């Protein structure tokens, strides 16, 4: 019973996607739509295979930017969330600023980083940091703030120091919220890197995309989109895996 439901959960969306792809291929062939407007899925996969090594090379630098930006964002969020949680004044001062910063469209500031830091990896990493920082720091902060006050009083009555309380109580209890923010960031980070590369770069999936698009090689654009999606999925799965290892207790069902 349960097994068949899991099979259904997987097979139903797969069948649906397959139907969409067949429909797409059928329409492209039936109407003989030209390649430079809309290639069919079979051709896109063919392009992906043919250009595999080239796309992999571009994907590699995009991945490096993602991982670097992602790591910096995590480190930064931990430090800032810790300070903001411990020092009420800092929380009051920074919180509105962090939220307001999200109203600035990233595409409008990314060119500035290129002006300031050139065409290398640094401006892309900065864009990734900016994109990833917000979901992580906000989820970590709300996780820390949501810790039941009774826990804090209990530990205070057992004469735990502030550091003990942070280490033993607040941090572990905030980790589930932190990881849900992290999963959102993981999906965003590749997008951040691609936006950074669009605006000017020597290498990366974003560059490959703009170059292909300018020469009307739409199949290559689609192949790059597939690669971007795959990278995001890999990062997402990676975060989920780390989550399982770090907080195994969180998956235990509440009895």
């Amino acid at each position: 019973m349960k097994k068949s439901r899991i099979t259904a959960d997987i097979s139903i969306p797969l069948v649906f996607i397959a139907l969409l792809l067949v429909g797409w291929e059928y329409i492209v062939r039936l109407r003989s739509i030209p390649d430079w407007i809309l290639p069919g899925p079979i051709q896109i996969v063919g392009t992906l295979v043919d250009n595999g090594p080239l796309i992999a090379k571009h994907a590699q630098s995009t991945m490096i930017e993602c991982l670097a930006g992602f790591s910096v964002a995590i480190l930064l969020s931990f430090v800032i969330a810790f300070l903001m949680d411990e020092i009420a004044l800092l929380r009051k001062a920074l919180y509105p600023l962090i939220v307001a910063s999200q109203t600035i469209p990233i595409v409008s500031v990314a060119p500035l980083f290129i002006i300031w830091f050139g065409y290398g990896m640094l401006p892309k990493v900065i864009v990734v940091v900016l994109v990833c920082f917000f979901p992580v720091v906000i989820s970590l902060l709300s996780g820390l703030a949501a810790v039941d006050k009774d826990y804090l009083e209990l530990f205070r009555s057992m004469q735990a120091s502030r550091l003990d309380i942070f280490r033993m109580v607040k941090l572990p209890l905030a980790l589930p919220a932190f990881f849900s923010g992290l999963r959102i960031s993981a999906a965003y980070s590749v997008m951040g890197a691609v936006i950074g590369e669009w605006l000017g770069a020597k290498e990366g999936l974003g560059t490959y995309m703009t170059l292909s698009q300018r020469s009307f090689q739409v199949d290559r654009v689609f192949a790059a989109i597939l690669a971007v999606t795959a990278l995001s999925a890999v990062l997402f799965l990676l975060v989920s895996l780390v989550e399982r290892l770090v907080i195994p207790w969180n998956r235990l069902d509440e009895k």
Partner: protein
Amino acid sequence: MPEIVVEGVSKTLGGLLTLAEINIKAGDRDFVGILGPSGCGKSTLFNIISGLMQPDQGHVYIDGRDITGRMGRVSYMRQKDLLLPSLNILENVSIPLVLRGLPRKKASAEAAKHLHQFGLEGFEKYYPRQLSGGMRQRAAMLRTFLFSSDILLLDEPFVSLDAITKRKMHAWLIDVFKAIKPTVMFITHDVDEALYLCDKIYVLSDCPTVVKLETVVPFCRPPHGRTIVDSQYGTIRDQVMAALEI
């Protein structure tokens, strides 16, 4: 001698006089019940006794020493089990020992000695979420006990349990306390629970809280039998009910 004396304690919270001159006492190895309507400041009283809160007036004496506003002498167990979901049962119950500076291994070994008595043997590697409410409450009790074994403040420890589990916990508690003989203050809303467990009962009034009734229960913790048949039972129960205005 582990005894708690609360003398003339009053406290105003948020402009509201919550506790007005409370005098209560739990003598050596007494099991003292505190009954009162919701929101009458029973938990505030425990916060003051445990030193988490300073009273506006009055003093708390333990072992004959004034410990008003000082933490760390008594252990305090709340309604919620407050076990950390990130640690297993053994790690959870050893927390007070670790906080006292014992190395983790030693703390675990020390805590493990008591697992049998608290009915947790074989469950040391389980996480709190894998256990029933009754077991979690026993684990919380063991953690409380390992912090300070001779004076326990229990704030409605069984309130979230179903009637059958609660009854089992009573029997278990009586057994354990026979062995460890602590001095206990026990908050409850349940008149029968109080009459079953406590040597002495204080009934508190609505805000501003004063002690309305102090009564000794001569028949508590019957050695045999589950039902109290003492002829005074009805009389004392009625007195308590009258004081609670129910």
